[in-house]
């Protein structure tokens, strides 16, 4: 079994390789006249070289006992996952539902779904956060927030 640094460096090597390959079509140019792909190409190359170095160091560390440690072990990792999904859904529905409604729903969900609060806290928290942020950003700072289904 590979250890944490071996796995992460292998992933970075792959990312570096992708950058390197996909920068070639942009044109590398010549040393006296570097092209659009010049910088990303050498950046990708540097990433591959550095991740190889990290992998080698991690391999040396493995011999001295550095093992795979599950980074999620002993954590409540489901909570950040739920929050991340909720944020994504919010971003997708924000334009359609409008800022006030989408924000109230998101705050209500986060208050109830992550570390469950009393319903009174959930309702008041969702309503107040949505309203106060709307007043501050839309009314005072003139930020253009989506009106959505409440546009009338």
């Amino acid at each position, binding site marked *: 079994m590979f250890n944490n640094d071996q796995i992460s460096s292998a992933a970075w090597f792959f990312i570096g390789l992708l950058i390197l390959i996909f920068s070639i079509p942009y044109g590398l140019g010549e040393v006296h006249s570097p092209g659009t792909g010049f*910088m990303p190409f050498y950046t990708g190359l*540097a990433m591959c070289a550095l991740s190889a170095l*990290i992998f080698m160091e991690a391999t040396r560390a493995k011999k001295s006992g550095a093992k795979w440690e599950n980074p999620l072990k002993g954590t409540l990792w489901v909570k*950040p996952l739920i*929050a*991340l999904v909720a944020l994504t859904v919010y971003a997708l529905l924000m334009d359609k539902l409008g800022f006030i409604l989408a924000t109230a729903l998101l705050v209500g969900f986060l208050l109830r779904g992550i570390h469950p609060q009393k319903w009174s806290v959930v309702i008041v*928290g969702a309503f107040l956060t949505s309203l106060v942020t709307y007043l501050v950003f839309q009314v005072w700072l003139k930020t253009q927030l989506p009106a959505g289904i409440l546009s009338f």
Partner: protein
Amino acid sequence: MEYVASLINGFSVAFQPTTLLFCFIGVLIGTLVGVLPGLGPVAAISLLLPATLAITPVNAIIMLAGIYYGAMYGGSTTSILLNIPGEAASVITCLDGYQMARKGRAGPALGISAFGSFIAGTLAIVGMMLVAPPLAEMALKFGPPEYFSLIICGLTLVTFLAKGGMWKALLMAAFGLFLGSIGMDTLMGATRFTLDIPELTDGLGLVPVIMGLFGVAEVLGNLEKSMERSIFETKITNLLPTLKDWAASIFPILRGSFIGFFIGVLPGGGGILATFTSYAIEKRVSKHPESFGEGAIEGVASPESANNSASTATFIPLLTLGIPPNATMAIFFGALMMHGLQPGPLLIKEHPDMFWGLIASMYIGNIMLLALNLPLIGLWVKILKVPYPILFPVILIFCLIGAYSLNNSVVEVMIMIIFGFVGYILRKFKYEAAPLILAMVLGPRLETALRRSLLLQQGDMTIFFTRPISAILLIVAIILITVPLVPKLRKKVATVPKEDDPS
């Protein structure tokens, strides 16, 4: 004499009622951010950045600067009363500050930290006033090769001081350079890696990336932990330190100010490194080092002074060379650009009102902070009692609004969420985000300097070594990279205090 006239001009800017108001809002938000664990100055500044587009550039920069140095003041409160640093630069204050609170001396601990911060902040402003203009004059002589080497040296120093190993930090910097290259190639006019997304034509937005890596990732990291925290119940009395406290603290404050200033100017330097260094030096010079960690007032006075001094000094490389030395200054870099100001040696000449107005506002802001921190300490303690499960949805909503309001686009929000996830994973595998941000900001400038140098010299790479300043900077970078390869030196490097993610 010229400085005095410029400073008077700066005060005429800073004393305008609206500027005073924005300075006050900045230090107030900064103190709040510093007090609240889980929301650092980087996230706070980046999420308020889009909102500043509605105000003048001078007021915007003054307010954002207020948040930064205000957070340094506020961070000490949670360290002393909760043993939880409100922001990363206050970690070391926990050691003696919390012990002082446990011994019934929370008042003097909070008092000396506020006064020390005030003295250090003021001294650093004087230093900045004296150092920045001549440094900017010198930087005017820099050509593309010097800028290329300066950025390489700066990035190397940042990675040298980063947590989690130098190769990992360099890898993050390389990835940051790639992210910075997304969008328009300014020399050729072609676009790259935009995936046909119009929002990416002008490049990947700095604000959504920072809010993702520092704001959202921080919240996600906190959510997976247990939320239990308790405030040490103590009566906070005698905020004014006694004469004995002053006698013990005055030299640590001066030493901390001095150390903080010099570390703050260095690329990769900042509050955290300054506090650890000043604490270590204080312990070494103390006649009773055994009392450190047991509630020694010097252990609070020196690091608290150092972090404030460093936070002011970090503005110097940004405003004179156009090189942000840490992630917070990278956001200021973005803020100046968003307001049509080019950070660099011409900034002081072309926008003296901004530069001297900022310096004058720092004097005023320091006085405001003193007034805010001491009499309102009870209020800050009450705010500390707001449970994190209620606080975090508000932080996330601020991040979402901040990202959306940049271009009124959901794409920016999605970018922020993606980088929130990336930041969370990076933390899990012990990769630091700060070098990534700095490289992303400096990437376009580095690329332009490199390509211009090569174009001018028809591909002759020796230009970087034949020009003296460029050669010195590159040699420093090479030394920094090779030091960890020498086994004996590697052990010594490992003992150097590291700059953490300043979320």
